[in-house]
């Protein structure tokens, strides 16, 4: 394949990564922004979403099973996160340092429980639809510009649907935060927890819902990607690392920053992996994090101070 079509293919693959990463990182960023909790177990909520998708699609076959998984997995994982919040984080008074240790513990518990019940195998989930689409490319031939269909340049309807679904969910999340009362309450709590209390906000309930929502976003992202990636009990490590990279580059607690950084990291990961190597992609992403931490520690979009 020539360079142009090859680049387009890499960009499409990168866009799928970016879409799923943006959802996952938005959850992490929301939890940190509102609660000041660094959730190390975020990747395990992602993994649980994928594993639950496998269970559900085993129980109910066909596209409806997958549709059901899209609803059930985020709900169950969200509920589990609410329980974890009330039983663990709340008892630590949401202390920033102690919650890091606690969520590390939660990470291992969730991982081991999954290993004991679901097992060590990677299992596939069938996409609800998966038609290949060949994509055209514009080329200058003997008689001017012409559309050609290079061999290997294509994508699937499912991958396009993943990008569309992630974009739709992120728009909905933005509308929720910007336009609803619950979103306003969350932002007020993020700005000043004590003043929110002084204006009638039940902060602990807001925290529980935020933690649940953050986990549900990770689970939803995992359900979307599992037909492309397979479900495995160790699959949470990469999304956690990449989400942290995205959230640090974008600015902790800034949703627009998270989106921009997810697109940046997702696309560059896709493109560099295709043309060079996945390892180089990770090296460059980590280097970028180091540069951001040195020269702009609040992130590209983060507010300074606090």
């Amino acid at each position, binding site marked *: 394949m020539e360079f142009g079509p090859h680049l387009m293919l890499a960009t499409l693959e990168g866009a799928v990564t970016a879409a799923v990463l943006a959802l996952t990182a938005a959850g992490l960023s929301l939890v940190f922004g509102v609660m000041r909790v660094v959730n190390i177990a975020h990747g395990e909520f992602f993994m649980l979403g994928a594993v639950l998708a496998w269970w559900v699609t085993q129980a109910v076959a066909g596209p409806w099973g997958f549709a059901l998984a899209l609803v059930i997995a985020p709900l169950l994982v969200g509920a589990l996160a609410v329980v974890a919040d009330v039983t663990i984080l709340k008892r630590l008074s949401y202390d920033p340092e102690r919650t890091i240790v606690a969520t590390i513990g939660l990470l291992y518990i969730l991982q081991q429980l999954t290993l004991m019940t679901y097992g060590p195998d990677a299992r596939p989930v069938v996409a609800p639809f998966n038609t290949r689409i060949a994509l055209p490319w514009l080329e200058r031939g003997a008689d001017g510009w012409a559309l050609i269909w290079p061999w290997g340049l294509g994508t699937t309807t499912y991958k396009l649907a993943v990008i569309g679904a992630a974009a739709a969910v992120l728009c909905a999340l933005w509308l929720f935060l910007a336009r609803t009362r619950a979103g306003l*309450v969350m932002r007020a709590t993020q*700005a000043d927890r004590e003043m929110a*209390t002084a204006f*009638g*906000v039940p902060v602990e309930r807001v925290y529980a819902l935020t933690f649940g929502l953050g986990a549900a976003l990770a689970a939803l992202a995992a359900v979307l990607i599992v037909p492309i990636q397979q479900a495995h009990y160790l699959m949470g490590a990469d999304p956690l690392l990449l989400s942290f990279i995205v959230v640090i580059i974008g600015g902790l607690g800034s949703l627009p920053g998270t989106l921009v950084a997810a697109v940046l990291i997702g696309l560059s990961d896709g493109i560099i992996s295709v043309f060079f190597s996945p390892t180089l992609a990770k090296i460059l992403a980590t280097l970028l994090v180091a540069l951001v931490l040195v020269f702009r520690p609040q992130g590209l979009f983060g507010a300074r101070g606090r």
Partner: protein
Amino acid sequence: MLRIADLRAGYGAAEVLHGVSLSVAPGEILCLMGRNGAGKTTLLRAAMGLLAPMGGAVWLGETRLDTLPAHRVPGAGLGYVPQGRRLFAGLSVAENLDVGLMAGQGGAALREEVLDFFPRLRDRLRQRAETLSGGEQQMLALARALCLGPRALLLDEPTEGLQPSMIAAIRDVVARKRTEGVAVLLVEQRLDAVLSVADRVAFLENGRLAEEMTAEALRAERTRAHRYLGV
């Protein structure tokens, strides 16, 4: 109306308030004075339930506040303007007011009424709170508290660092609320300002109420205040 009885509070094991009692009637302004570190802010925070009291009680009318969870206190009718404004940064002026409205029962009508007091805020509804000038921020902090339609107001140095015209504007609003029967507990450091609005004055010294008198009496004998303020 607002009654604080033998209130003890502090941070960790350290008690800062050693049993303070005071009460404010409807339509009355009680000014609380005292040196830096005397415990004025601590008293207001404890009354709001933001600091778990170590003893004593807080009543608003027939409602006992100190046994309520902190987030239920504003709904009972207690509005708070904290020291240093503490606006919701990142939220617009309108959204800051909305948070206040959510805590009370008043709807759009109350919001309009509050904005009538503060035309400068009406012109800046879409602006983010942290981009307002210091004076405008203080107005917003007061407007936010008024949006919950409070029966009693706790104001912690609401005119700190403001120019005279701003101070006058805020004083007028507080005076208006007094005529509507709101009980006002006002922490204020400058004697002139206190004498121009207060009905009664209380002096706090090292976490204890040292003396209480009418504004009248203080006006006649201004030097009494100097003892507690260290001027």
